[in-house]
């Protein structure tokens, strides 16, 4: 249980990577942009991959009537996400410590993992909602209005995950270092739960063996 608890203490700390590295990355390449434009989505805001990328993406998006990329103050998520992550790190480490001193068992570890997973899914859902709004809630006075074959207005929602061709742009959307660190951290807590569960099992077995011997 001590090893499991140590892993449980270390695991949530990986989430701190989200403060240093982007969660997600969206790259936009086009014939005119052999060096693609890109945005890094951090939990506290969106940054350009290169210094002027956001400005240039906004500049291009105005043709099709997309809103400008939100600044940190313009989305509640950028305020709440960092707090949630800090809260989960503190909670996770605390559970690990309590486990180390034998106050709680592996079920708490698993509980943290499940809670984090639920929050993660909610976060992804929210992110997807924003992408949908960003890509389809267009200015009716947009300079360029493209319609699909069925006559509906074309929307420009970047893919949540993977590659998509949008007009002249090739859009690639992938998790970034922060997300991978979160994934590793969460996996560690799952591992901690497993080791905790196993060690409990062996304890029970050893106890039962002792009982038999007695």
């Amino acid at each position, binding site marked *: 249980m001590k090893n499991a608890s140590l892993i449980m203490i270390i695991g949530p700390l990986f989430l701190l990577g989200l403060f240093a590295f982007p969660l997600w990355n969206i790259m936009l390449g086009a014939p005119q942009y052999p*060096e693609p434009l890109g945005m890094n989505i951090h939990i506290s805001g969106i940054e350009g991959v290169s*210094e*002027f990328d956001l*400005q*240039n993406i906004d*500049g291009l998006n105005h*043709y099709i009537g997309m809103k400008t990329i939100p600044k940190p103050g313009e989305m509640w998520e950028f305020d709440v996400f960092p707090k949630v992550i800090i809260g989960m790190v503190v909670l996770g480490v605390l559970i690990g410590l309590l486990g180390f001193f034998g106050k709680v068992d592996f079920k708490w570890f698993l509980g943290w993992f499940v809670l984090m997973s639920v929050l993660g899914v909610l976060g992804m859902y929210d992110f997807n909602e924003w992408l949908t709004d960003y890509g389809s809630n267009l200015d009716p006075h947009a*300079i*360029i209005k493209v319609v699909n074959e069925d006559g509906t207005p074309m929307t420009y929602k970047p893919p949540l995950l993977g590659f998509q061709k949008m007009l002249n742009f090739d859009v690639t959307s992938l998790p970034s270092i922060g997300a991978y660190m979160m994934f590793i951290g969460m996996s560690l807590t799952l591992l901690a739960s497993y080791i905790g569960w196993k060690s409990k099992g062996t304890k029970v077995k050893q106890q039962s063996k002792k009982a038999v011997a007695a």
Partner: protein
Amino acid sequence: MKKHTYLVMGLLGFAALLTSCGNGNQGKGSSGALNSSNAEKVYVAPGEHDEFYAFMSGGYSGNLTVYGLPSGRMFKEIPVFSQFATSGYGYSEETKPMLNTSFGFVPWDDSHHPDISQTNGELDGRWIFINGNNTPRIARISLTTFETEEIIEVPNSAGNHSSSFITENTEYVVAGTRFSVPVPQADMPIKEYKGNFKGALSFISVDPEHGHMDIKFQILMPGFNYDLSHPGRGKSHGWFFFTTYNTEEANSLLEVNASQNDKDFIAAINWKKIEEYVNNGGGTKMPANYAHNVYDEHTHTATSIMRKEVLTVDPTKIPGAVFFLPTPKSPHGCDVDPSGEYIIGNGKLSADLTVHSFDKMIAAIEGKKFDGEAYGIPILKFEDVLAGTVKSGGLGPLHTEFDGEGNAYTTFFISSEVVMWKLGTWEVIDRKPTYYSVGHLMIPGGNSRKPFGKYVVAMNKITKDRYLPTGPELEHSAQLYDISGDKMELIYDFPTHGEPHYAAGIPAEILAPKSQKIYKLAENKHPYATLGAADAKVVRDGKDVHIYMSTIRSHFTPDNIEGVKVGDKVYFHITNQEQDFDVPHGFAVIGANTSELLVMPGQTKTIIWEPKQVGVWPFYCTDFCSALHQEMQGYVRVSPANSNIELSWSLGD
């Protein structure tokens, strides 16, 4: 026998031409005629980059052109000494001061010899310098922005030809005069030239941090013509060598009268010694008047100030500073090999090359073995300094470059060829014809301690039939030779813009990564910049109307302006708000008595428009900036001079 060789070579060349037209891949010949592998050598596939930058002087275009090697593709014309309507250089209010001189605004010059800055005798790619020959000036061009940043006029000079060569740590850029003139200028009979005129050799210091130039001292030499020069390097660092002609000091019909002496001189200048002399208070300050023009990348504006004094040095007052090396037949090019040992005098009226030895020169100086003097300057004995003679078999040697592997390459104007020979043994290894009458040649780094000896470019003075004819006036031709093998191989031929004299080449990997993409708007300190569309405005100051206008794809802010009157002087201050690579905006307004503006991202430029007629007059973006470029336009309403219409401006209402 020689004639025979030429005939054979000519025939081979002709055969190569025929075959390359007919069935391109079969033109193999024994002496390097065109073959399919040559096509591959110069083929830079679409989207691929060249291996070298080549900066070719524009000659009478006054500018500097940028090419790629081996493809021969031209990338840019950098305006230097000439007004350039394409970008507004020399027309815009910001850049007019760049062309200011003591003679007023001089919109043109004749640019000759580019040289790239060096550290420890190797190309460092910070700046490139070039001389204006006609109204003596030296320009410094940034190799991050590829724009002219500074021009300094050279007083007491005329025909700034033995320029602009740099010392091996870019301590100095050196400018020598071709014409000797009265110093200071004076109203005197031309016939009294001999003994009275002076030849000024100027050592212009270069600030190691910013590159800013300052004339440190001028050596007032005897009244010869100082033709070309090159620095010592390695062991001869601290010396500078100038070829002279017209040591006869003729003032008329030089063609004949300056060709009488069997030998002229190479002047060897110990500039370290003179530097020490002036640092210790030596030299004479002379009143002068010359312009120093500096362009500031942050204000996007040049300023011109007149300098009023120059420090002159009498070389006879500094023992051991200057010596003359007798050199046959009116030498033209003066080239120093990568080791710094050999100084090559290209005697242009001769068949042979004279090579002097630096070590022998020092020994002769130490042994005081002089053969008289000229105007108090010791003349060394020809035999004492001679390292060897290259019996070339060609005629009219002009310039020599080096490949760093012990070989030298010399152009022969009259016999129209490049001759490859070996340093030390002086034997001729190879020769290839040029088309036609070659002037300079260039190997990237070929006049440094570390040449990149893969290609040599020959720059010719006569084009004739090399390309499709374009009437009487033709571009000049250049040939590219592969010198990576034992012999030279002609692999390509391409036209060049203006009249390239010298050129300077550098591996692309040194320059390309630091080539600037945009100017940062946040660093724009132009007093009339419009940093955001909200700052756009129109301000009247008497008859002057200042329009603070911003541009972004694809509109001007403002685009409707009223309240301008006939007789006003309207300043369009255009700021490009883009911060994206390769998105310039242009600006032109109907009837402007000046050029357009081409404004790079983050930059501000200004032109003046003086409306003469009442009406509503359009302006537009001249650079196809986006799919909506044709929508990028606006109007200025011009009312009668006595109108009381208030100034107003707007966008999109």
